[in-house]
């Protein structure tokens, strides 16, 4: 659809503004896996409340918007084995690499961080391999 890329740019701009605000006002890097992971493994320390507030906004506003607009179809697989395996990989991988699409991708690339750029190339490559393997070869997804 031609409007997909317009909504993509617009939504991307909102994501960038969110990251810019979090950086310029709170002085923090907006990385979803770091924000959540630090709460889970206890490394967030004194930042815990700030991170919980971030998560409340992240989960809360989309929930409210969806109440009005209706929930979009997210095409999430119903295969729980896939969801559990993928969840474990995403959780372990993002914490081992210290970042995900928001931390390494948006915040890392925009400051020309070598680690962010390399990580993004690797996880996009691995994602492409994963889709070839599980969709085109095995037909699981």
């Amino acid at each position, binding site marked *: 659809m031609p409007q*997909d890329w317009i909504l993509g740019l617009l939504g991307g701009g909102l994501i*960038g503004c969110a*990251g810019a*605000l979090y950086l310029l006002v709170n002085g923090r890097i907006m990385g979803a896996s770091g924000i959540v992971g630090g709460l889970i493994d206890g490394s967030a320390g004194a930042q815990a409340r700030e991170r919980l507030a971030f998560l*409340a906004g992240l989960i809360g506003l989309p929930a409210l918007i969806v109440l009005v607009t209706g929930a979009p179809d997210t095409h999430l697989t119903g295969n729980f084995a896939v969801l559990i395996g993928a969840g474990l990989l995403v959780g372990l991988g993002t914490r081992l690499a210290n970042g995900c699409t928001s931390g390494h991708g948006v915040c890392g690339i925009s400051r020309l961080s*070598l680690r962010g750029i390399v990580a993004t190339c690797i996880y996009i*490559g691995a994602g492409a391999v994963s889709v070839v393997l599980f969709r085109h070869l095995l037909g699981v997804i």
Partner: protein
Amino acid sequence: MRLVFAAISGALFGTGLLVSGMVDTAKVRGWLDFFGAWDPTLAFVMGGAILPMALAWMMTRSRRPALGGSFPAAPEQKLGRNLILGSVMFGMGWGLSGLCPGPALAASTFNGLGGLVFIAAMALGMWAAPHLRARLSTPTPAE
């Protein structure tokens, strides 16, 4: 005040993920499906997000965070095995499910039971990561 702005940032982030369609796992997997029905939307989202973020990084040079403290230190240059191994694992899981941490949380209230199962597994993986990291670093002190 920190809490208010953290919540506003989170809300903007979640709204951006919703508007851009990145909560739709079909779009994300479509981006990764270079050998199938490729969907370039994610590139526009990344581009749209990196632009304001790059401006923000430039602005950090001549000031301090509005609410005090200091900006994050310059990024490490060393790549290291954990970055590579972790990104491979993350990418595999991302392609498998079409979910990464941000969208998984933003869509958690309308992704059904499956979305919550994914988040629970992701949380378990995040909890286990420091243990795996410790195990990886003990046998070979080289690097």
